[in-house]
């Protein structure tokens, strides 16, 4: 369906075969100019994005890689105080930051918790989304009411929801503990006890994530042809068998996509943890991203080099995700 960006669409196919854009065959002089005149429309259209990404992601990325091999911190970077300009005095330390991070227990603690956090958030919200979508995807009085109610958490900006949950979780006066007190149960230190705080941040993130899963699964369910279910029923398949052998396989494409997307989002989920617990108590709920942020913007002196090293390691971990993602796409017959 896509065509070559040569000027004449109709001739695109011929141009392809005649010019032979094979990797090594077209190395004639003027190839660049011809390529330019052929493709400049396409290039002009993507130029702004490439420029923005290059300047705002490319440069900081290279710079971050460089910083991670230095001992840069708040005290020795280039800065201006009043009228005095103080040049940078940090120096290269090779891979010391990386060895320091990797040999430090803090990193492994944070990594373990980040993985628990990501897996449990995605697994729980996916399961709930799937169950609720199946419940909604049938003839039902009040269906649109339920639908609207269930996706409401998605409509509210995440940081507003997080503040609301802080109100509910308040240890002394929050509504949750007041309800528990009504049932004669002692107040729970939702955000002040390491274990409860972990459960709390997962709860809030699941609450935020279910609507996305729900709507995606509903879309997936509606794309499964009804005849399949009729045929299965004729053959005497019970509800569970139909779910197991028709619904689940029919949802495979959309589930693999949403699981990967939300896996990446959750791994990088900054606002929930930063605003709900600030990573506390201690650093119990700190995931890799918030910890790296803390190193460069919260602790004193700000440890820019250490933060950059954490960032690079996070990026490497996420590249693993990318490989998985690409494998998944390839299985689905994605061509590019």
């Amino acid at each position, binding site marked *: 369906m896509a065509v070559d960006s040569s000027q004449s669409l109709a001739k695109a196919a011929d141009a392809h075969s005649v010019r032979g854009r094979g990797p090594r065959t077209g190395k004639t002089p003027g190839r660049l100019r011809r390529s330019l005149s052929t493709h400049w429309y396409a290039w002009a259209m993507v130029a702004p994005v490439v420029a923005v990404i290059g300047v*705002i*992601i490319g440069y900081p990325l290279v710079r971050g890689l460089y910083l991670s091999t230095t001992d840069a911190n708040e005290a020795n970077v280039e800065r201006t105080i009043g009228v005095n300009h103080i040049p940078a005095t940090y120096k290269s330390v090779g891979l010391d930051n990386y060895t320091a991070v990797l040999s430090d227990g803090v990193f492994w603690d944070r990594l373990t918790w980040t993985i628990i956090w990501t897996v449990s958030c995605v697994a729980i919200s996916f399961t709930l989304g799937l169950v609720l979508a199946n419940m909604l995807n049938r003839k039902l009085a009040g269906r649109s009411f339920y639908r609207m109610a269930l996706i409401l958490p*998605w409509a509210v900006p995440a940081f507003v929801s997080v503040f609301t949950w802080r109100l509910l979780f308040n240890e002394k006066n929050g509504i949750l503990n007041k309800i528990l007190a009504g049932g004669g149960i002692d107040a729970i230190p939702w955000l002040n006890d390491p274990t409860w705080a972990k459960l709390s941040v997962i709860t809030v993130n699941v609450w935020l994530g279910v609507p996305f899963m729900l709507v995606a699964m509903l879309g997936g369910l509606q794309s499964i042809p009804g005849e399949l279910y009729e045929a299965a029923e004729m053959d005497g398949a019970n509800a569970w068998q139909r779910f197991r052998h028709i619904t689940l396989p029919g949802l495979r494409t959309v589930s693999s996509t949403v699981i990967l997307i939300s896996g990446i989002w959750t791994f990088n989920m900054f606002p929930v943890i930063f605003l709900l617990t600030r990573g506390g108590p201690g650093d119990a709920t700190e995931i890799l991203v918030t910890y790296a942020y803390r190193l460069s913007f919260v602790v004193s002196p700000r440890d820019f080099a250490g933060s950059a090293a954490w960032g*690079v390691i996070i990026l490497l971990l996420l590249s693993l995700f990318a490989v998985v993602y690409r494998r998944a796409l390839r299985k689905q017959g994605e061509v590019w």
Partner: protein
Amino acid sequence: MTDQKASSARGSKAKVRERGERGPLASVALHVGLLLASATAVLPPLWLLITSFKPTSEAFSTDLVKDFTFRNYDHVVNDTEFLSWLGNSLLVVGLTTVIGVFISATTGYAVSRFRFPGMRSLMWLLLITQMFPVAVLIVPLYNLLASLGLLNQPVGLVVTYLTIAVPFCAWMMKGYFDTIPVEIDEAGRVDGLNPFGTFWRLIVPLAKPGLAVTGFYSFITGWAEVAYASAFMTGEENLTLAGGLQTFVNQYTSDWGSLTAAAVIVAVPAAVIFGFVQRHLVGGLTAGATKS
């Protein structure tokens, strides 16, 4: 939840019933399950709304509103910097949305319609930048903006947000443009339009729903972003909403009355716009990843 599902499944298994019908017990279970889930979903925002109408001193009372008051709203709007935060956010978000939609639409169109050298690497670039963690870029970006004098400037945040919103939006737009028949482009060419003309005069008007979804995504990206906004904007009058609201409830103060009122003002427009675009949202979100 699974119990209810199982029981509804048992109900539909019964032989005497028509296909798609449930027994009364299964129906009750289904409704109870959905009601519980809906209540869980709705209660926190509802509680926020209720609390915002209570006097500050009663922010934590479990009563529904006893002394209904607008004082929190009045206080937030008139006595705090809320309006400047709102203005900052609107400026940043507005610019991000307009520029983001425009450049992601052209990019999406180019990768949907043309095969050009560098396209595959561009697609990869767009995919990979989606998963860039804040942590790896934020310090160098902070230094870069500082050296350009763009800290505390809305422009700095706009450019930053573009890098978050645009890769994803370009993917969504590609998915959307793929659903528009190529014959329309061909007809435009036959009538003598160049590719820009075809794009602008024929395709953009057809792609309005897709553009709306993209616009919403850009809007939400800017409206709800916390990390960059907290790091790059300092000084009370320079904050955006995400940063500003943090000042109401931090380790030193806890002004829940102002927080709840401000949060409601922030949430309502977002929720209203969301209501308009939600039907198209997931299709767009997953299209880029699932369709070729």
